[in-house]
């Protein structure tokens, strides 16, 4: 398929709206991505024609939607190249997926004095669940340091991997810096010592096609809404052997084979981890989003986004007073920056008046901000539907904001 930016933009209804009397320029894709019409239609169709509870009824609607939901699981499985559909667990999102693994893995495998290894660039969602397990079990949270450019120091990582390390939890792409971590190498190094690895793919899935078997990830997690799908749905991929080993996280309807007041026999994967009625239209919408991005193709997406990254980086470097935070060699289309003497909040407020949506603040990575000695940054994160024209408008808006605020 030829990459036609105008045609692609037309697939996203929200991109044509105005904000504060200006054409919306949406550069906050790291927070959440916009939805193509096919996803919105899938959700509408679900409620108009398909709504019923899954895995329950004998009636036609229930059967139809069960098939559709399970097909959505297969779409995710194929997209990630997982070995089996039941290795795909539907969750509420990345945070929920990490909490599930931290809780269930922690319950069974973490004891006093054990170590859990994360990195200095983690989102709070990949810090707090582990911190809590450590507090409960008397385990120790160890942190892989980063260098000035915002890259992991791999020699330190090797040093930190020890007999005490029970699990490594690491982000694929930093939400704040855009750094793409060498997860394949990280996983291989951990596996030499038989340590499982969870990869937080929240920021990665919209930029690159992930192959969990190629990576050999033990757990790979992400949110639907960052992959152009609905909010409130996410994925936990886990290797079959791990998911079978882990105890259930939340229990209730749908997770059982038999229940008596004395004992419960739990269902097989994936239902063991899917208590309650799931976010059915979320799963359906996510599958529609995955089909959509695959039609465009991740090769085209990567090429376009890389062009945007280079173009925006060069433009920002020419802007007086701007300092880019996170200059890793291997970066996704995410740029964090500060403007000398100006507060990110002020810059974000003026940009918003111009219809330009960026993220400002600590991006839920306070330890990372402490490393750089900053209160916060301004972050522009690009998706494949962003254009060079938008970057021009953004940089022009930024210059205007700087002039006003100085």
């Amino acid at each position: 398929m030829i990459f036609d930016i105008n045609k692609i933009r037309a697939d996203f209804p929200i991109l044509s709206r105005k904000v504060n009397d200006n054409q919306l320029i949406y550069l906050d894709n790291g927070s959440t991505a916009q939805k193509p019409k096919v996803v919105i239609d899938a959700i509408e169709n679900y409620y108009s024609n398909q709504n019923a509870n899954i895995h329950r009824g004998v009636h036609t609607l229930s059967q139809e939607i069960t098939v559709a939901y399970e097909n959505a699981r297969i779409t995710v499985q194929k997209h990630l190249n997982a070995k089996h559909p039941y290795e795909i667990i539907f969750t509420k999102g990345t945070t929920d997926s990490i909490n599930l693994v931290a809780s269930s893995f922690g319950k069974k495998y973490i004891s006093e004095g054990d170590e859990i290894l994360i990195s200095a660039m983690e989102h709070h969602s990949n810090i707090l669940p582990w911190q809590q397990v450590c507090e409960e079990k008397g385990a120790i949270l160890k942190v892989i340091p980063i260098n000035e450019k915002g890259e992991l120091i791999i020699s330190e990582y090797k040093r930190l991997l020890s007999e005490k390390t029970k699990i490594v939890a690491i982000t694929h792409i930093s939400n704040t810096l855009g750094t793409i971590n060498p997860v394949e190498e990280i996983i291989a190094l951990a596996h030499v010592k038989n340590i499982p690895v969870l990869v937080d793919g929240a920021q990665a899935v919209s930029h690159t096609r992930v192959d969990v078997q190629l990576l050999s990830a033990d757990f790979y997690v992400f949110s639907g809404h960052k992959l152009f799908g609905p909010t409130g749905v996410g994925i936990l991929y886990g290797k079959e052997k791990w998911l079978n080993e882990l105890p259930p996280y939340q229990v209730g309807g749908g997770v059982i084979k038999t229940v008596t007041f004395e004992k419960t026999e739990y269902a097989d994967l994936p239902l063991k981890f899917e208590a309650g009625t799931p976010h059915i239209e979320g799963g359906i919408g996510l599958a529609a989003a995955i089909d959509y991005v695959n039609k465009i193709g991740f090769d085209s997406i990567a090429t376009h986004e890389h062009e945007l990254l280079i173009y925006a980086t060069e433009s920002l470097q020419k802007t007086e007073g701007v300092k880019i935070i996170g200059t890793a060699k291997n970066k996704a289309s995410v740029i964090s920056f500060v403007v000398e003497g100006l507060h990110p909040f002020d810059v974000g407020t003026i940009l918003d008046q111009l219809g330009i949506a960026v993220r400002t603040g600590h991006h839920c990575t306070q330890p990372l901000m402490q490393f750089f000695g900053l209160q916060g940054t301004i972050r522009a994160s690009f998706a494949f539907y962003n254009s060079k024209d938008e970057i021009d408008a953004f940089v022009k808006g930024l210059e205007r904001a700087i002039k006003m605020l100085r």
Partner: protein
Amino acid sequence: MSIEETEQEIIDEFELFDDWMQRYEHLIDLGKSMPLIEEKFKTDDKLIKGCQSRVWMHSELKDSNVFFTAESDAIITKGMVALMIRVLSGHTPEEIIQTKLDFIETIGLTKHLSPTRSNGLLSMIKQMKLDAIAYSSKSES
């Protein structure tokens, strides 16, 4: 000048501007010209925690009136702080507790009060009122 009169004065001032740009420029100017808080009051216990911009605020009771000084690391927030101080400082605790601060809506800055903005303005108004309540209950006892 009463609280309502100051509010009206600010409304008149903002009506002179045609567009948001000028309104923000005015807010920025107000922020820049606001007298700074004494360094000794820029401590953690004077910090009103918003998500993004920080506001330090100090209040004192002099001759039954409350006087506020404040500062923020963000200039637009500082401009809004300056407006709040201009309206509320120098009034009795009761006057401060009772005022509704309708002028914020009239001058088109309401969106800065939405909780998601997290710029500390909402927390600051709350703190100013809490200080006033504290002074008022002290004088009663």
